[in-house]
């Protein structure tokens, strides 16, 4: 069964996020990493870049395809998980420990789901 931690929010485009003191941590869900298959490269955004909610935040390359990850929130990228530049496959191993980007929130979120709603959304 797909791992869907209770304490996170999920988007329709399969990102997870968590907010703490105005900083939003973003990653991709277990469902997303499983669909992608072997991740070989993560094209992380520049620190300081500004993103609108729903805008492309970064791109993940797998052997099979390239998929965009969308920003769940209006804000500014304040940190990227640069460890993933060298070992992107860590996201396949644990997509929740291996967050990708931290964003300082400046505006609204996209619509999102809790764990139960998201499990239903992916048809489980």
């Amino acid at each position, binding site marked *: 069964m797909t791992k869907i931690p209770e304490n996170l929010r999920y988007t329709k485009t399969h990102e997870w996020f968590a907010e703490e003191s105005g900083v939003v941590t973003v990653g991709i869900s277990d469902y997303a990493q499983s669909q992608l*298959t*072997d991740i*070989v*490269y993560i094209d992380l955004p520049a620190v300081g870049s500004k993103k609108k909610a729903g805008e492309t935040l970064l*791109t993940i390359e797998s*052997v099979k395809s*390239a998929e965009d990850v969308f920003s769940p929130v209006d804000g500014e990228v304040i940190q990227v998980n640069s460890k993933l530049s060298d070992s992107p496959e860590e996201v396949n191993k644990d997509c929740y420990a291996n967050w990708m980007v931290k964003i300082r929130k400046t505006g609204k979120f996209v619509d999102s789901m809790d764990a139960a709603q998201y499990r239903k959304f992916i048809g489980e």
Partner: protein
Amino acid sequence: MVENKRTPLYDEHVRLNAKIIDFHGWDMPLQYTKILDEHMAVRRHVGMFDVSHMGDIIVEGKDAASFLDRILPTKISQLKIGDAAYSAFLNNDGNIIDDTIVYRLSLDKFFFVPNASMIDIIFNWVKENSTGFDVRITNVSDDIACIAIQGPESDKVMADLGISYPGQFKFSLQNSSMALKTNSITNSKQLIISGTGYTGENGIEILCSSEDAVGVWRSALESIKRHSGLPCGLGSRDTLRMEKGMLLSGTDFHGDRNPHECAISFIVNNDTEFIGKNSLTKGKQVFRGFIIDGKIIPRSGNTVHNGNITIGTITSGTLSPILEKSIALGFIDREYSKPGTNVTIRIRDRYLPAEVSRPKMVP
């Protein structure tokens, strides 16, 4: 909604926990473990693939050889019994509808293997063009299963299975210790062992009755595991063929490129009047490999540039597990097609430097 087709090995794939995907209307295994591991198993040891979704069409009769000479650019009438040849069906414009392997079973009996997504189209195309020839054309695709054993240690698996290697692009009918059903290609209770594949490694493809597929699969799997091998899905099948620059029907071409553009001019060796012959041109572009220094991967539809000029299009791309770099296949204007030429490829909002290569990027 039409239900997807399944090969006789579908339950075996599910049992092995394969990730199943839709491939042109077929439920097929994408991967059992990881695409990269399966890829390396084939390069270093041995891997096995279910390719039963591919078609099998028999052409027999007094005019079988001359008919195939008419419908293919390759001189099929010169094949010896037991030989196989790579070729392609051309439309009237000389462009490739589908590529195939043709096998000569006897003086007046052949069969060929079209791609899974093209079986009906090719069967109809061949039938339509058979008027005036004394031939019988039969689609036995559903009766036949095919299991590929590929990799430098495939000879060990052959030994375990009691199979002898027929030679590259040759095939033979072999008895098995298993009690086999009659296969509808040769009407004998034998395996068809073909020295062909789609990975660039040594290996064979085993054709048998669909009813024998599970038995053959399980024996091969047992042997594969003994030799550090893995069952492999369509994911690694794709990355393996890309490293070797092999075309994928429906991806690299779709009725829009001729054999010269696809860099397979060697299949055009037929002096008779074959379909498409009079429309064959050298073509403005040619099929090439592209090697990128980095891990951002070009994908189908990305464009190739020299400065501000667009000079080509990408049709396939992946990360090469052997080169540990991104690689791509596509078409480029002939004047820039020399291996070693530096170009750029537009990927999303970036222009990345790439080097033109022969299609075969991994020796």
